[in-house]
């Protein structure tokens, strides 16, 4: 980011566009200078002349020279971004936010729960944990999407599931011909969950309604609000805690989040 003007985006060239699902694409970007970020920190991605929006990179924080951002087509900006081709130049600001507390996960059982496009920021966390697997006790990934066409990063499931200390389970909401895996919303993967509860930290990302029910399910399974990190997203403009719009109570999600310990926000209205 331009140290003299944090509002000015740095050019980043699109080097690859990956079609993930009918509505989701991943853009691989080559930033002007290495984009040093921690898993869970987010970027403000500029579509020149149109505007910018907050997206958490889905790629490995260990590869700051190739940033991948996975984007659901859902509004004016993302419609425009979905039109982009390799070779075009976008803009990047940031990284912003705290990022996942990866260094506090030593000897922990890490539970990763994603819904739909919510697996995107969690993939950065998965990469960060895979790079230090010797320090964590176990990584359990639970993922749900509406149907098989909406499952993200299918090409990586076998590799994750086959890695020692890692397990991966996914589900789709409704039965589908040819699918012999789990059926049901993602909370069905959390019933009688096989984790060492007092030693577990959960990271959850997905639509608001999914966050709500996953939080409820995890609490029913015996996790405390301190053990649950939710990826909270609100409209963010500056990314620096100045423009005011992304607050939950006294917390600015851009600065204090976007992943918030549930214990900090649970007493405020409109969390979900």
């Amino acid at each position, binding site marked *: 980011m331009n140290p003299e*003007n*944090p509002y000015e985006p740095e050019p980043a060239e699109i080097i690859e566009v990956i079609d993930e699902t009918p509505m989701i694409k991943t853009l691989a970007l080559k930033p002007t200078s290495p984009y040093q970020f921690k898993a869970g920190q987010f970027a403000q991605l500029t579509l020149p002349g149109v505007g910018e929006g907050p997206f958490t990179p889905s790629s490995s924080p260990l590869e700051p020279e190739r940033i991948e951002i996975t984007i659901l087509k859902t509004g004016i900006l993302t419609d425009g971004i979905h039109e982009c081709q390799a070779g075009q130049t976008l803009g990047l600001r940031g990284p912003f936010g705290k990022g996942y507390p990866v260094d506090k996960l030593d000897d922990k059982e890490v539970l990763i729960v994603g819904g739909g496009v919510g697996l995107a920021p969690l993939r950065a966390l998965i990469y960060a944990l895979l790079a230090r697997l010797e320090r964590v006790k176990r990584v359990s990934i639970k993922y749900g999407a509406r149907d098989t066409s909406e499952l993200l990063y299918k090409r990586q499931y076998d590799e994750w599931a086959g890695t020692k200390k890692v397990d991966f389970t996914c589900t789709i909401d409704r039965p589908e011909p040819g699918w012999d895996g789990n059926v049901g919303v993602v909370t069905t993967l959390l019933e009688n969950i096989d984790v060492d509860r007092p030693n577990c930290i959960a990271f959850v990302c997905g639509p608001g309604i999914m966050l709500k029910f996953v939080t409820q399910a995890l609490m029913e399974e015996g996790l405390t609000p301190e053990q649950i990190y939710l990826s909270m997203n609100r*409209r963010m403009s500056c990314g620096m805690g100045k423009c005011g719009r992304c607050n939950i109570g006294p917390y600015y999600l851009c600065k204090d989040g976007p992943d918030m310990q549930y214990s900090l926000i649970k007493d405020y209205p409109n969390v979900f």
Partner: protein
Amino acid sequence: MTVFYLPKDKFVGWLSGLNGGTVFAPAATALGSWVRRFESDTDEPPALDKPRAAQSTKGFFLPPAETIARYGPDAGSVAIAEGRNVLVGVRACELKAWKYLDKVMLEGDFDDPAYRARRENAVIISCDCADCAETCCCVLVDGRPYVEEGDGADINVTTLEDGYLVEPMTDKGVELLGGEFSEASSEQLTARQRIRDAMVERLKTQNADFTFNATDANPPDLPLDDDKSWQRHSADCVECGACTNICPTCHCFYLFDHELAVGSNERVRAWDSCLLSTYHRMAGGENMKISPRPELRSRLANRILHKFVYSPQQYGMLGCVGCGRCVDACPGAIDIRKVVEDLSK
């Protein structure tokens, strides 16, 4: 520091002779005082004896809209430093507001270079309040109608009947005052104290209906925004955003981009208002929750909670300085004092 006495003509002469900056000062109008450019050929003193100006000076540092960046291969960059402004007649409440804005804009991981340049370039000549508006209520939020060293002014001025007491408060102020002025007599200093005490008394009297006494360490206890009692006040809100525009501490802004020409884009920073329904609006379609505060009630609550509850937690300071401008500006006659009084637990 030493306090000096300047008779009226000398004071105006000194102000009009100030070099190295554009001087702005309050001028009396039929609609109250307004901050205007102070012309150097005038012999009219600025309206320091009137209540605080109708609009705050926030816009000098955080303009209503500005180009904050340019980008694209042919865009060039945006020059952010501006000339020096000398702001005269700034009140204690506004100095407090700037302390608050400094925390928002300059502290934390990211500096705001445009705000910093304008803030550091400015010269502040404050004044004690010699009069107040009916809505002035600094005494309810631990404020006072006069300025002391450390408040953030370079020079402070007190209006006496036949002249002014002028007190430099920083090295910049000493340098700026220059000249050979006589030191204030002990009678004049006593007169200043009398004026200050009388203003405090007057403010307490005009706010006697309000029993709360908010401080940074002891802010009022207000219900959260899902509490239906906020409805009693939001029923009068017409979502115009006047309160947030006029408020010296409201700083919410929005960034939006334009294409100026092929290869050249600009990013504009413009004031925004948390009362507006578009403020929180996110992308998304049917069956998606696109705003965390769809009801006006919870948006009004969020503004007042930010001033009185969240700001002390975020910045160690109340977000309301008691200038009363939002009360004057509101077409629905919402009085923030009454809201806090009514809802404090």
